[in-house]
């Protein structure tokens, strides 16, 4: 109550010294005081209620981020602990002029763009099917979600065995050699595994968007003379745009951090490393905390830029905020 003590005290002081002051002035000061007190108490309560969550967030998110930024500014290799030293942005120069980084960055971008694009198209198709299904809707939805429910590593292993010559049915069917030992086919298989796994998630997000399209709007478009395709492109897509953008944002952020599939399928061999793979190899396997942290920070920055572009430039409504008209 120490915060509130001051205005109350001041108020009584005013009242005592200006007892015979004009009525409006007195009334004004009297009215203002309780209002601001109320507000202050409310704000204080708000902070108190947020505090536990905020503290946990600081402990598990803010601290590691800040610490890795701090590490990225140092020469710090656990194999040579004595050479630890603050070197400013030198690590960033090292990484950003390194061809391995840019190869991995290119691979990651490729995987991100291709998988998200394919997932969007397939997911939309799946969403429309699930939305239109009249019989056994629950069963259809559940079965469509199965790939998403399987642990990524487990699914990745089954893909790996399937594509391994001798043991795998897919390898024998589609190629003579070992597809996971060549760069192009490895990347294709990684993307295939990613798409297979996350299309259901995309479909689910898009289906929520489909539910936003009022039935009357489609009926109106029918009577206005639209074909099925025109209804889709001119009515459904614009109305669904907020949902589509949110789905794209989620998936792009996820896809950019691709790790498990690559780890299991190729272990980053034949230049199939993503940036996350590269950071892992430097940080955990190479024990180079400085360079590894630099890469992590760079990934963090890229992801932040992607999110920023989506939210600010495309007008994606941040999840949880009002998803109404934004323009």
């Amino acid at each position, binding site marked *: 109550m120490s915060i509130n003590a001051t205005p109350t005290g001041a108020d009584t002081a005013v009242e005592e010294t200006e007892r015979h002051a004009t009525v409006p002035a007195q009334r004004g000061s009297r009215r203002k005081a309780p209002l601001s007190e109320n507000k202050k108490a409310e704000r204080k309560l708000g902070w108190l209620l947020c505090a536990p969550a905020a503290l946990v967030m600081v402990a598990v998110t803010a601290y590691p981020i800040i610490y890795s930024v701090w590490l990225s500014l140092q020469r710090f290799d656990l194999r040579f602990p004595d050479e630890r030293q603050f070197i400013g942005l030198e690590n960033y120069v090292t990484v950003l002029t390194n061809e391995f980084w840019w190869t991995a960055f290119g691979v990651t971008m490729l995987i991100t763009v291709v998988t998200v694009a394919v997932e969007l198209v397939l997911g939309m198709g799946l969403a429309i099917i699930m939305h239109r299904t009249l019989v056994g809707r629950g069963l259809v939805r559940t079965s469509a979600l199965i790939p998403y429910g399987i642990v990524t590593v487990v699914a990745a292993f089954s893909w790996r065995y399937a594509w391994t010559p001798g043991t795998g049915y897919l390898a024998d069917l589609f190629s003579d050699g070992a597809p996971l030992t060549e760069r192009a086919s490895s990347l294709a298989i990684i993307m295939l595994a990613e798409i297979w796994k996350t299309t259901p998630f995309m479909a689910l997000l898009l289906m929520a968007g489909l539910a936003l399209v009022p039935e*009357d709007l489609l*009926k109106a478009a*029918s009577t*206005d003379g*639209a074909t099925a395709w*025109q209804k889709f492109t*001119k009515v459904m897509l614009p109305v669904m745009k907020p949902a589509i953008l949110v789905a794209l944002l989620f998936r792009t952020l996820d896809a950019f951090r691709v790790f498990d599939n690559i780890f299991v399928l190729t272990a980053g061999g034949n230049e199939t490393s993503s940036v996350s793979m590269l950071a892992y190899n430097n940080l955990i396997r190479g024990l180079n905390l400085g360079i590894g942290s630099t890469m992590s920070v760079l990934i963090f920055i890229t992801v932040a830029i992607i999110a920023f572009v989506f939210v600010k430039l495309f007008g994606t409504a941040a999840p949880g905020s009002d998803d109404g008209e934004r323009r």
Partner: protein
Amino acid sequence: MADIVLDKVSKKFPDGTVAVQDVDLEIADGEFVILVGPSGCGKSTTLNMIAGLEDISSGELRIGGQRVNDKAPRDRDIAMVFQSYALYPNMTVRENMAFPLRLAKLDKETINSKVDEAAKVLELTSLLDRKPANLSGGQRQRVAMGRAIVRQPKAFLMDEPLSNLDAKLRVQMRTVVSRLQKQLGTTTVYVTHDQTEAMTLGDRVVIMRGGAVQQVGPPQELYDHPRNLFVAGFIGSPSMNFLHAAVQDGSLRTALGDVPLGDRIRRELEAADAPRELILGIRPEHFEDAELVDEDTRRRGLEFEAPVEIVESMGSDKYVYFTVEGERASAAELEELAADAGASDFSGAGSNLVTRLSAESAVAEGQSRRVWFNLEKIHLFDPTNGRNLTLHEGRAAGALAD
């Protein structure tokens, strides 16, 4: 522009429910027809079948003489206005109105001039660059109308277009719709559950119940000569009073006294399978304060005395509610009407009588009052099938007719 013919049109859903049954209806070119009925009566389904948004299970639908059963909505050349307005939220008012024209691949200049013209008629010119989200309900409704009229279609189909507006605006828009329809002379089918809208708007009104047409006719005819109990109860506000009536020695025993019967009705009631119990229907305006009735008129009616419950003075006249003793009239139709009005679980003791008396009447709450009612205007219904027994060759003739 074209006529619309429904020839035994039915709609049966896959689960077996019959939404619309054998509807026969001929809508002339330029006619304004209202489909009205309580919710679930099949009026919207009928409209959707005309639009092509629902398949027709059996029967034939012809627009402009052409069978269109299997044509897609876009090939039927009809425009529809929805209760929710169904404006495209991502398009401006201009784009919304231009949408059907753009789909029809008209050139830009024609589109612009047509949209401008329609906007002028509906006073939307200053709103053309706004998005629907920034419009009021009435403005959105007008845009929806605009989108329908720019195309000059064969017919307008309107699905409760005014139901989302507030009461005052609804009355105002009613005249707008009416004027627009007369101006354009386009065949219009209009669905509503509001009997006032039906009475005021249409050239002809189609009353539906449980998927079947009950009666088709000009509003006044439906009001004066209802073919059955349902039509009588549905049309009119406040609605017709219904009383239980027992047939006894050539007259009717009712809570308002013994009602004498004319020869024709008596003959009908003498038949072996004739009902022994009837429902008597009287509209509120066919009552009058007995003091204000002259001798000549008095002879054509009957008088009774009852305690006054509530007096509502409307200025031009007074609505007076009486409580009368006796059995309540009961029939499936009446229960359905009460349920539609949301009053199925609300009923006072005895029967309530709503009367519309002259403003000069000195009636007061809590008193007893002598009231006269017109025997020539009463209707008698068979409670088993709802048929209006007083109807002779399509005209209602009252109880005394010979």
